[in-house]
C-alpha cells in the first residue's frame, strides 16, 4: 500500500478514523446529541471528499476502485448515514442510547457500505460486507431491555452468519474454478468451456443465495419483517435503504458484461425477480404494522431493482441508479417519520395507533403520504419517473414480461401504501403521540420530501448525473 492508494481511499479512511475517534470521545463526554452531530459531520465531510477530491489512482491494490461510480455510491451511502444520524437525535435521548457508540457504529457501517460498493475483488467485497454486517448486528439490538429488538438482532445474526458462510464457500468455489479473486475476471472465466465451469456455477449459486439473504429476495426474505419491526426505526431505515443498495451496487458492474456465464446467472435472477415482486406484494397486503409493511415493500422494490440489474447495459444501469436514489429517499423518509412518532412508550407502528394523527401532526402526515405515494409511483413524485425509467429500460432490453409483472405489482401496491395514509387522515381523535418533532428531524425529512417533489417534476439533473457515473 502506498500513499497514492491511501489518498484514493480517503473517504473510507475518514469514516473509519472518525468512527474510532467518536467511540473514544464518547467514553469521556456523555453528550448524545453532540456525538450524533459530529458523526453526521464526519459522514458529510467524507461524502464531500468522495465527490470533489480527485483520487490519485482508480485501482487500489486490485481490491477496490475509485471510479466515478464507486465514488457516487460512497457519497450516497455517506449522506444516508448522515441523515440517519440527524433524525436519531431525539430518538437516542428517548431510549437512552449511548450516543458515541451509536454514531461510531453508524460511521463504521458507512465505511463498510462504501467499501462494498467499490469492491473489485471478492476479498474486498467480503471485507466490506462483513464490516457493514457487524455494525448492523449491534445496531439492530441497540435498544436495551427490548425483547423484540433482541429477537431481531438474534434473527439477523443467525441469518447473516449463514449467509456469510454461503458467501465464503461460494467465493472459494469460484476461486477454484477460475483462479482469480477479481470480480470481472471471475465472471469472464465462467464463459470459457473448461472442465471447471460447473464448479464455478455452483459457486455463483451459493453467492446468489448469500446476496439473496442480504437484500432479502424471495425466498430468502423471511427475516426481513421481523428484523425491521424489532430494530430501532432509524436503523430499519438504514437497513432497508443503504445496506441493501450497497450490495446491489457491488454487482451492477458485473452484469454489464454479456456472455454465457452471465447469461446463466441472468436466468436465475429473472426467476428471483418475478418471485420477489409477486410474493412481496401479496405478503404486504394483509399487514397492519407500518414497519412490517415497509419491510415487504422493500422486498418488492428489490424485485424492481433486479429488473434493472437483469436489463443491465447503459439503460439498465441508469435506471437502477436513479431508482435506487429515489427509493432510498422515500423509504428512508417513511422510516424517518416513524422515528419522529416515537415517544417514551415506544414507537407507533400499528395502523390503529396512526388513526387521526393528521390532525395533530399535519406536516408529518403529509410528508409520510408523499413518501408512500412516491413508493407507489404516482406522479408528480419522483417514484413515477423512477418506475418509468425502469419499465422503459425493461421494454427496450427485451424484458417486457418483467415490466408487466412490475406494473401489476405496482397496481396492487396501491392498496397497502394507502392504508396507513387513510388511517392517518381518519377524523377520529388521536390518542397517542403528542410529541413535537425535533428540529433536526424536521429538517432532514422536509429535505427528503422536497427532493422527491423536485425530482418528480424535473428529474433531469439526477438523470444526467447517473448517466455520467455509470460503469
Amino acid at each position, binding site marked *: 500500500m502506498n500513499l497514492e492508494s491511501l489518498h484514493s481511499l480517503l473517504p473510507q479512511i475518514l469514516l473509519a478514523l472518525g468512527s474510532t475517534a467518536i467511540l473514544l470521545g464518547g467514553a469521556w463526554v456523555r453528550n448524545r446529541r453532540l456525538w450524533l452531530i459530529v458523526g453526521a459531520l464526519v459522514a458529510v465531510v467524507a461524502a464531500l471528499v468522495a465527490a470533489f477530491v480527485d483520487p490519485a489512482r482508480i485501482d487500489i491494490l486490485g481490491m477496490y476502485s475509485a471510479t466515478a461510480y464507486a465514488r457516487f455510491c460512497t457519497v450516497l451511502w455517506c449522506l444516508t448515514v448522515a441523515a440517519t444520524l440527524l433524525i436519531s437525535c431525539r430518538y437516542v435521548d428517548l431510549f437512552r442510547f449511548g450516543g458515541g457508540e451509536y454514531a461510531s457504529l453508524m460511521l463504521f457501517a458507512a465505511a463498510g457500505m462504501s467499501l462494498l460498493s467499490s469492491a473489485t475483488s471478492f476479498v474486498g467485497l467480503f471485507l466490506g460486507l462483513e464490516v457493514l454486517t457487524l455494525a448492523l448486528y449491534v445496531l439492530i439490538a441497540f435498544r436495551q431491555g427490548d425483547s423484540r429488538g433482541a429477537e431481531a438482532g438474534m434473527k439477523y445474526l443467525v441469518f447473516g452468519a449463514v449467509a456469510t458462510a454461503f458467501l465464503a464457500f461460494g467465493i472459494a468455489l469460484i476461486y477454484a474454478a477460475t483462479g482469480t479473486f477479481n470480480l470481472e475476471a471471475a465472471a469472464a472465466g465462467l464463459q470459457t468451456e473448461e472442465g471447471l465451469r460447473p464448479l464455478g456455477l455452483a459457486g455463483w449459486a451459493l453467492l446468489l443465495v448469500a446476496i439473496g439473504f442480504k437484500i432479502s429476495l424471495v425466498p430468502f426474505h423471511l427475516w426481513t419483517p421481523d428484523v425491521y419491526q424489532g430494530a430501532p426505526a432509524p436503523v430499519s431505515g438504514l437497513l432497508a435503504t443503504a445496506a441493501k443498495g450497497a450490495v446491489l451496487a457491488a454487482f451492477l458492474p458485473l452484469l454489464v458484461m454479456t456472455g454465457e456465464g452471465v447469461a446463466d446467472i441472468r436466468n436465475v435472477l429473472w426467476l428471483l425477480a418475478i418471485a420477489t415482486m409477486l410474493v412481496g406484494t401479496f405478503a404486504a397486503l394483509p399487514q397492519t404494522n407500518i414497519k412490517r409493511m415497509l419491510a415487504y415493500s422493500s422486498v418488492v422494490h428489490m424485485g424492481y431493482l433486479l429488473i434493472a440489474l437483469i436489463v443491465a447495459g447503459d439503460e439498465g444501469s441508469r435506471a437502477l441508479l436513479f431508482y435506487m436514489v429515489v427509493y432510498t429517499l422515500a423509504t428512508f423518509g417513511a422510516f424517518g417519520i416513524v422515528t419522529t412518532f416515537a415517544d417514551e412508550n415506544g414507537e407507533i407502528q400499528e395502523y390503529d395507533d396512526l388513526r387521526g394523527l393528521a390532525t395533530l401532526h399535519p406536516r408529518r402526515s403529509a410528508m409520510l403520504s408523499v413518501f408512500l405515494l412516491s413508493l407507489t409511483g*404516482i406522479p408528480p413524485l419522483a417514484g413515477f419517473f423512477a418506475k418509468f425509467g425502469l419499465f422503459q429500460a425493461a421494454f427496450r432490453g427485451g424484458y417486457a414480461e418483467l415490466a408487466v409483472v412490475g406494473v401489476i405489482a405496482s397496481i396492487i401496491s396501491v392498496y397497502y401504501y*394507502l392504508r396507513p395514509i387513510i388511517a392517518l387522515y381518519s*377524523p377520529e381523535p388521536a390518542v397517542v403521540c403528542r410529541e413535537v418533532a425535533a428540529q433536526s428531524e424536521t429538517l432532514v425529512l422536509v429535505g427528503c420530501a422536497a427532493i422527491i417533489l423536485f425530482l418528480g417534476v424535473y*428529474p433531469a439533473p439526477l438523470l444526467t448525473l447517473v448517466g455520467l457515473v455509470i460503469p
Partner: protein
Amino acid sequence: MTAIMATDFPLLSLLLFTPLAGALMCLVIGAANGTNARWVALITAGIVFVLSLVLCLLQTPAAGWLLYEDYSWIENFGIRYTLGLDGLSSVLILLTAFLQVLAVLVSWRQNHAPAIFFALLLILETAAIGVLLALDLILFYLFWELMLIPMFFLIGVWGYKRRFYAAVKFFLFTLIGSLCLLLAVISLYLLHGEQTGVYTFALEALKQTELSGTQELIFFLCFMAAFVVKVPLFPFHSWLPDAHAEGPAAGSVDLAGLLLKTGVYGMIRFAFPLFPVAAQKTMPILAVLALVGLFYAAWVAFQQIDIKRIVAYSSISHMGFVILGLAAWNQTAWEGSVLLMVNHAVTTAGLFAVVAMIEQRTGTRALDQLGGMWKSHPNMSAFFLLFCMASLGLPGLANFAGEILILIGVFTVKPLWAIIAVVGILFSAVYTLRLVQGTLWGSSCEPHDKQDLVPREWLVLIPLAVLVVLLGCYPQPVLELLREPVSSLLMSGGLP
C-alpha cells in the same frame, strides 16, 4: 387580439398553475384559520374562471391552436412540456373553472381540516386543466394521474361511512386503466424511436408512427382502458356510484363535472387520432357497450333508494349517450357529444348540489324517507325540478340540445342505434320522475332544518339554472367553438 396571441407570455402556464399556487396559499394562510382557506380557494377559483373566460372569448373559429407553449423539459427521455389550447380545450376548461367555483361554494361549510380540503380541490383543478392542455403524452399522463391523488383524499377522508372502500375502489379502477395507458405510451415511444431514431412523446410526432394492424389494436385498447374507466362506460362503471355515494358534495360535483369529461377528451384528442384504423374497427363494439350502458344504468337507477346513487347512475346513462355519439364518427354527432358532456356536467352538478342541500336539511338521502320538500322548501325544490327536467331531456333545457344532435348524427349512419337510443331517453324519464316524485311530493318528511335557500346557495344554483336554460335554448356559441377542432380531429382520424 393578435397582439395577445403574438406575445410570448406563457398564458397557458399561468392558467395551469394559478390553482396550484392557490392551493399552496391555502395551506400556508389557511392552516390556522379555516375561513381564510375558504376565501383563498374562492378567489383563486374565481381568477381561474375569469382567465379561462377571457381565453374562450379570444378564441376564433379558425383552425389551429390559439395558444401554444413548448419547452424542453426532460431531455434524457425526450419529454417536452407542450401545451396547446384550441376551441375544444377552451370550452372544457371554462366548464372546469366554472364548476370549480361552485364546488368551493358548495363545500363552504366543510369543517374538517378546511385548508387541506380546499387545497386538494385546487390541485384537482390544476390537474384537470393540465389534462385538457397537454400535448406531450407523458405530460398528459402526469396530469392524468395527478387527478387521482386529490380525488382519493377527498373521498377517503371527507367522505361518508364506507369511504375507504369507495376511495380505494376508485383509485384501483382508474390506476389499472392508467397503467395500461402508460405501458402503451412507452411501447409506442420505443417503436417510434426505433423507426425514426427520434425518441419523443409529442402527440403530433407519434401520430406518424407506422403500426401493424395488431399493434395498433393493442395500443388502442390499452389507451381506451384508461379512458373508458374514467368515462365510465359499461361494464367499467362500478366504481362511480360508490365514489359518488361515499364522497363529499364537492367531490361529486368535480367527479361528474371534471373527471368524467377527461375520459371522453382523452378519446377524441389522443386515442382516436393516434389509432384511427383500430378505432373505426372497434366502433360497433363501443356503440353496443354505450347502448347497453344506457339501458342498464337507467334500469339500476330505477332500483335505487339513495338519491345520490340515482344521480350517479343517471350520469353513467348519459355518458353512454355521449359515447354513442362518438361511435357515430361524424361531425354532428361529435359536436353533440361534446355539447352533451358540457350540459350533463352542468345539470348533474346542479343535481348533486341540491341533493347535498336536501341531505343537510333532512339528514337522509333515502327516497322512502324523503318527500314533501315542495311544501317545506319551495325554492330549493323548484331548482331541483328544473335540473331533473333538464336531465331527462326536456326540449329547451340543456341536455336536449346535445341529445338531439347526437341522435341526428347517429341516425345518418346507423338508424337502428338511434332508434334504440331514443327508447333510452324514455327510460331516463322513468327514473327521473320517480326521483322527483319521491323527493318533492308525497307525505312530508319533517326536515329538521326548515330554512329554505340561504344566499350562498342561491349563488350556487342561479348560475347553474341560467346555464341550463341558455345552453338549452342557444347552444350556438359553444358549437361554434367546437366546430373547427372537432372537424380537424375527425379528419386526422380519417373519415369512414
